[in-house]
């Protein structure tokens, strides 16, 4: 116990109030919050100064930069160790402590004198860097840096800014700004073929993309016009229902076919097929290659995909009689004309 602690306790007790000695990590936290705020502000200001001069003031007035990344580096070994101890100790108690701690360091908005704005839109956990220099054993004189006025400098920070992006969300008033669509395109949309009736109630959010499926199995040949996603497989009572998976279900009737044989779905305007990992059998493509489970294959516009289902996974299919529809069902998948129209620009052809 130092003489200062003794005197402090003595005066506190004389007033009838006992002062509790706080834990050293709390002292550390109190000390670094302000310092980190200052360092982060300075880093953002530096990054902003480097960027804002490249833009017209009129651009800066209608937009803001985004704070994409922030790196904080401790400059000496003691600080580095204390910061790591502090964060690790609290994270062992509170899992998201790091986010909460840095939330009070990073301000939601920073502004420059020229009118540029930086917004930290999402909770941003800075990257804590350990500089190699702070790991070196240093002499007493060079163990830490001080400012011109003698303040010990413990951290430095570097900010990375993105943007600028328009401050009002683009498209916020898109409904009022939208011009009516081209009449010719509208006419095409309304001339889409009627969809085939689908079993069960379809979930909301079903893709607008349509595929034409031609199935050849022991029942003969059938055609379907389906909205995606679609699941094909053996018809059994144990097979998942359309409502459960959210996909339209088409049953295949042949000797060799899995319950969840094939899934067809659309992602960002492209249509893919996949053999789920649950399927014990796979599908062979037109070139006799066997589809790998859980791998997606894109259906190219204008090029129907021909698959033979029920082939063994990873096996050579050359010895199999894939033309026997009673044993191996065949599935032909083609993107609907309207889907192709949506997906891409067609190549004009000469009319003869």
């Amino acid at each position: 116990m130092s003489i200062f602690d003794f005197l402090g306790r003595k005066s506190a007790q004389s007033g009838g109030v006992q002062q509790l000695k706080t834990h050293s990590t709390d002292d550390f936290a109190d000390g670094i919050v302000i310092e980190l705020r200052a360092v982060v502000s300075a880093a953002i200001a530096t990054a902003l100064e480097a960027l804002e001069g490249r833009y017209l003031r009129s651009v800066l007035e209608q937009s803001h930069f985004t704070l994409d990344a922030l790196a904080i580096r401790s400059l000496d070994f003691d600080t580095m160790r204390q910061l790591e101890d502090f964060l690790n100790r609290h994270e062992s108690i509170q899992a998201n402590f790091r986010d909460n701690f840095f939330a009070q360091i990073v301000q939601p908005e920073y502004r420059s004198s020229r009118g540029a704005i930086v917004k930290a839109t999402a909770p941003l956990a800075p990257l804590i860097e350990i500089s190699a220099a702070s790991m070196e054993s240093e002499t007493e004189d060079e163990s830490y840096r001080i400012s011109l006025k003698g303040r010990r400098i413990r951290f430095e920070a570097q900010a990375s800014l993105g943007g600028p992006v328009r401050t009002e969300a683009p498209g916020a008033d898109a409904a009022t700004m939208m011009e009516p669509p081209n009449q010719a395109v509208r006419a095409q949309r309304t001339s889409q073929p009627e969809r085939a009736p689908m079993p069960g109630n379809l979930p909301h959010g079903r893709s607008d993309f349509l595929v034409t499926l031609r199935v050849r199995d022991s029942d003969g040949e059938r055609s379907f016009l389906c909205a995606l996603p679609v699941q094909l497989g053996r018809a059994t009572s144990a097979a998942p229902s359309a409502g459960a998976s959210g996909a339209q279900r088409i049953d295949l009737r042949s000797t060799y076919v899995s319950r969840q044989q094939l899934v067809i779905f659309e992602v960002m305007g492209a249509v893919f097929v996949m053999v789920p990992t649950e399927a014990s059998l796979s599908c062979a493509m037109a070139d006799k290659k066997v589809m790998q489970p859980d791998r997606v294959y894109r259906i190219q516009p204008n090029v129907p995909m021909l698959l033979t289902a029920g082939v063994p996974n990873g096996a050579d299919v050359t010895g199999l009689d894939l033309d026997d529809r009673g044993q191996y069902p065949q599935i032909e998948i083609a993107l609907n004309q309207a889907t192709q129209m949506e997906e891409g620009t067609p190549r004009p052809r000469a009319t003869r």
Partner: protein
Amino acid sequence: MTAIHAAVMNLQAHPAFGCDAFAHDAQAGIWVMADGANSCPGAKQAAQWVVTQIVNVLAHSQLLSDSEFERSVLAVHAQMLSVHPQTAATLLIGQIGPASIRLASIGDSMLRAFHQPAWLLARWREQLAMPRDLDAIGNPSQLIGSEVCETVHVRHLPLGGRWLLVFMTDGAAATVTSSALTMSLATLGRQQPSPDDLEYLCRDLALQALAAGCRDDVSVAMVWFAEPLR
């Protein structure tokens, strides 16, 4: 002539949709954009090939007559039929010549020219929108590298004042509105933009196209140029 340009290309998350390409030779005063037909295999490579070819062929053709210019473009088209036989692309060209600005287009991409006279208080005005080749159902009626490529639309604009050429592929052209373009021009005002300013404006228009529901890849390029003060 001071010319500044920027382009934001293929602003669409799906990598399979990146079929737009842009090339330029600022020294020679030529800027070219192409949009490969997404339904064709190799559209991305074809678009990149055609913009590079056009810049190489036309970089020093400012003095060509329009018919010679058209023949040069159609020669690239004929070459494309053999190099990329399965695909096609739209084509937009902006070229600054000694006496005029030559604009050319094939297909359904959009090229619009805005002008601000040199005198004080003059406003930006749309001077020209290049013809778009669309058939009755909204598909392109001709593309470079396709079976149908018969007409190269060529227009001329006078030099003087400030010009802004806005190149947009069909996805952006169908969804970006005139009011959005007007806002971009208002942002420019009478000031000389930096490439970063133009990139911001291009990205802003492209984001608006995506927000308006455009499913195609979105590309926007801008070329600003002005005669130096005397």
